[in-house]
């Protein structure tokens, strides 16, 4: 299919809420200045089931979405790899087309 716009890399990271600022710093280090955080309700993985009770936010998970220029995304992902296990993150990478591509450099 032929889509409008210019291609960029879409990175989605499912991560515990307290760790988001760390990841945002890492994004910024690679010159990726835009992101959006989205909520989740519950889930299940190797470490069991969880659902948001918000008595404590330590395990409250959110999705961090960032659309970035492919080369910068590569750099970010390289830096992210060593953190994956201790942070318990799930990372999804796909291609996406955007309008106004200059906004996602």
């Amino acid at each position, binding site marked *: 299919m032929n889509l409008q716009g210019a291609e960029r890399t879409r990175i989605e990271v499912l991560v*515990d809420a*307290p*760790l988001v600022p*760390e990841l945002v710093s890492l994004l910024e280090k690679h010159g990726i200045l835009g992101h959006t955080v989205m909520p989740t309700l519950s889930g299940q993985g190797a*470490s*069991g*089931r969880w*659902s*948001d*009770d*918000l*008595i*404590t*936010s*330590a*395990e409250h998970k959110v999705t961090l979405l960032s659309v970035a220029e492919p080369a910068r995304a590569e750099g970010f992902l390289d830096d992210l790899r060593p*953190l994956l296990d*201790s*942070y318990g993150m799930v990372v999804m990478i796909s291609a996406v087309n955007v309008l106004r591509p200059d906004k996602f450099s």
Partner: protein
Amino acid sequence: MLETLLSPVVLFFVLGAVAALLRSDLAIPEAIGKGISLYLMVAIGLKGGVEVSEAGFTFDLMIAAVAGITLSFLIPVPVFLVLRSVGRLNPVNAAAVSAHYGSVSVVTFVTGLEILTRQQIPAAGYMVAVLALMETPAIISGLLLAQRFGVTGTRPARELMHETLTNGSVMLLVGSFVIGLLVGKSGFASIAPVFEGAFRGVLCLFLLDMGLVAAKRLKDGRSLTPRLIALALAIALTNGTLGVLLGSVLGLDTGTAAALGILAGSASYIAVPAAMRLALPQADPGLYLGMSLAVTFPFNILIGIPIYVWLAQWVVR
């Protein structure tokens, strides 16, 4: 003790736990639970502040404050050693869990105050200040322990210090306490219907939620072994006893010594987990939340508090 169990506050906790164990779909929306917990911190802070504004800064207050800070700092050390040897935890997990036990649980404290008031041996108002002071030193101890065993946290110490001191619950407790001090009994009168009149009823709803959350977590059983469950009980009981005895030695009155025991015996599940997730991401949150929230918290509400109160009545002459 039966009398304690028949307080509405405790009964709602039991109802929540039963619903979760029966796999009911009963659930309190997150925002409501969070809102109620903020309300409770404001109410308890105001109440403490107003009481201290009446009684003044006494010598007892200072003694209790120093005792509380010391307990919060030191408790993590033996807890860490026990978790390493008996609990067979690795250093990073042991350090993270130990910080939880040095710190305190606001709701356990509040439930304890309710029960002390029902038994007509109220704790001194300044214990709210002690509660706030005990929240954070344990975090520092825990991180120092982790460091000594070669685990370096991911965050510079200064940043972490700042985050811990400006933690939402700490700021709210301290801020409300100061507001209570400033406005005094007369200024408090106009807002008393919300922060005093409604307090017990709202606490019931919160404990319903806590019962649900704690039992669900216990049932899911993430990371919890029988050995760790036993440790979570033993550590709470030991710390609580220690707190009561220390209070008694320092000359605090019965209710206040019991409150110090409740603080020492309780484990954090709000401020400390958030700090640990950030400072020691390698540690397993299922482990430290499981022990503090799913085991120690219900134990204290149902059994621990009555024991510490009874002990205080016995040892404080």
